[in-house]
């Protein structure tokens, strides 16, 4: 077990430094790339916070869906093979829910402001 602060907090502090201190002193291309760099750190921070639980859930669903065991990477490859072969389809119990849950978790890390993601969350909330 590592000491405090957490890795997510460290990454957040660096992103904050870039935005509030470094970026205002840069111009043109350098300022643009600094913003891209801060956004990349935001992705890392969200992944550190969200991915452990999301990956565990994805792993459990894959084992149930495929009736097989293996690494997250192995099982995702197996899922691809079976979808391609037509053995698993949207009519297969659990596939649609699995793809939605996995994709929503990816977007929560990668691009939580994306229009398609925000709309999907609105639709989810409207149904509740």
């Amino acid at each position, binding site marked *: 077990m590592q000491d405090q602060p957490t890795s997510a907090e460290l990454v957040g502090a660096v992103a904050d430094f870039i935005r509030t201190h470094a970026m205002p002193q840069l111009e043109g291309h350098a300022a643009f*790339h600094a913003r*891209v*760099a801060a956004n*990349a750190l935001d*992705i890392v921070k969200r992944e550190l916070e969200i991915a452990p639980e999301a990956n565990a859930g994805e792993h459990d669903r894959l084992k149930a869906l495929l009736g097989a065991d293996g690494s997250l990477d192995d099982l995702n490859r197996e899922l691809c093979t079976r*979808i391609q072969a037509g053995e698993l389809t949207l009519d297969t119990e659990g596939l649609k829910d699995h*793809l939605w849950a996995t994709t929503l978790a990816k*977007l929560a890390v990668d691009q939580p402001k994306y*229009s398609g993601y925000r709309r999907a969350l609105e639709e989810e909330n409207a149904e509740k």
Partner: protein
Amino acid sequence: MSDRNNDFTASLSEAVRRHIEGATGVDGLQRLSGGASQETWAFDATTSKGTPLPLILRRAPGGTRAEKTTAVALETEAVLIELAEKAGVPVPTVRHVLTPEDGVGQGFIMNRLTGETIARKILRDEEYAEARPKLARQCGEILARLHSIDKAKLPALRVAAAGEEIRQYHATLREHGHPHPVFELAFRWLEDNLPAGDTELTLVHGDFRNGNLMIGPDGVRGVLDWELAHIGDPMEDLGWICVNSWRFGNIDKPVGGFGTREDMFAGYEAVSGQSVDPERVKFWEVLGTLKWGIMCTSMVTAFKSGLDPSVERATIGRRSSETEIDLLRLLAPRS
């Protein structure tokens, strides 16, 4: 470097004097964009009458451009723009196609249009408020004209109907190697929903979207970026402009973030006299969404290989998930 720049400016001035009527030289030469193999420059031709002529140079300094095997040569691009202009498509007029004697590389000189190509400005700025409601219909009309160009007059182009596009992009995804179950689901859907093969293939622009259109307060002024042109299903162009990535946040305006499919189809039907099958357009929107997702994913290869180690290139890989949620909303809606 400065010697080479001086040579370039001198050769361009000479080419402009020789081939563009009334031109006396070159002023304000400025590089706009481009990769290692292909460049775009803006400049003014000075004239004997005093009024400068705003121009654009598109060139491959070393000759051919090797960045993408699917891209057409610049000479071909020039021929397509000329044919499009004759068919009534708004384009910047081509003024001169470079020859080896010009010593400027391969490429062409065309008029520089005024207007805006940055999608977010087109969708938000007050200046384009009156143009926005007209754009979808105009896009339909323009595409109908573009697709009407006589195939016998076209230069040699890649032929890629739906089946071929699917094979090509599936190969690219496999080459990349990372597993994407949602992409496999989309491939499966596309193979199961291939449009009937009875449609006549036409010239397809290949990248007709918000961002590649020059827009003024009056509407579409120019169709740009012809490098992905090929022979294919004309509905490919109508589907591509509806891909959610090109709506830039305006998710409820499917055509480029500015208009409705109905308006675009009405414009297309009025000019072509042919009815548009919305299901066929949807097929191409799905394939377009998948293509963009695979392009984002492929960027990672250039990053990991060290070819382009920039943070910008690296983060594009984390945008392929945007297309996965779009594909799920298209193919597996939850309600």
